[in-house]
C-alpha cells in the first residue's frame, strides 16, 4: 500500500522549522526506528535549505515549495518541488571533508543519509523536482 503526505511551504528559512515539524508528524505515524526518523528529518531539512539558498539565492519570495513523502513497501521516497532557478544536477557537489571550512555540508548529509538522490524531469509546471529515497 502506498501512503503519500505532502504540504506546501513558502520558500524561506523561516519555513524550515515548519518543514521539520511536518516531517516529524508524518514519521511519528510510521513504525520506523527513531534514529532513522531523525536522519530523514535532517535530510529533508537540508534539501529544503538548498532550495532556499540555491534555487532562490536566499531572496525573498512568495513562491512555495512542495514536500511530498511517499511510503512504499520497502522504501521511503521524498520529493521536493520548486519553481526557482533551474538546478544543474552536475553542479551539485559537496566540499571535500578534509577542507575544513564553513558551508558545503548539506548535500553531503543528504547523500550520507539517503540511498538515492536524483533530479527528475517534472511535467506539472515545477522547475526542479528532487527525489531522495531511503530503503527500509
Amino acid at each position: 500500500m502506498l501512503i503519500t503526505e505532502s504540504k506546501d511551504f513558502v520558500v524561506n528559512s523561516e519555513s524550515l522549522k515548519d518543514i521539520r515539524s511536518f516531517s516529524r508528524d508524518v514519521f511519528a505515524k510510521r513504525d520506523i526506528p527513531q534514529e532513522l526518523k531523525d536522519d530523514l528529518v535532517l535530510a529533508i531539512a537540508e534539501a529544503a535549505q538548498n532550495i532556499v539558498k540555491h534555487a532562490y539565492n536566499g531572496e525573498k519570495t512568495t513562491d512555495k515549495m512542495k514536500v511530498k513523502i511517499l511510503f512504499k513497501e520497502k522504501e521511503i521516497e521524498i520529493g521536493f518541488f520548486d519553481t526557482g532557478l533551474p538546478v544543474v544536477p552536475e553542479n551539485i557537489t559537496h566540499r571535500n571533508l578534509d577542507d575544513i571550512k564553513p558551508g558545503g555540508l548539506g548535500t553531503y548529509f543528504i547523500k550520507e543519509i539517503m540511498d538515492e538522490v536524483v533530479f527528475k524531469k517534472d511535467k506539472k509546471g515545477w522547475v526542479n523536482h528532487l527525489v531522495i529515497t531511503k530503503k527500509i
Partner: protein
Amino acid sequence: MSYKVNEQGNISTVFLTGEIDMDIADKAKGVILPLVESGKEVHINLKDVSYMDSSGISVLIESHQKAEEKNTKVIIKEISKSVLKVIMMAKLEQVLNLG
C-alpha cells in the same frame, strides 16, 4: 533558539537552547563570534540543543577557526546525542574541541 552567556574570568560559556538551523545560525554566530574575537576562551554548551543542521555545524567551524586565529579556544561542551551524531557525520570530532 534562546541563549545565556556566563562569564567567569577569561572564559565565556554560551548556553544554547532549541534547534539551530539556517534561520537561527546567524543569531548564534552573532552571540559567539564577538566573544571569540575579544580573545576569550569560549565554551559552547549544547546540552539543550535538540537539533542542529549543516548551518549550525558551520557556526561551530567558523567559531573554531576564528579562535585559532585569535590564539584562543572554543570548546564544545555537553553535546546532546543528536548533535554529536551530526558532528560525527561531518567527521569533525577530531577537528573541533569537544569537552
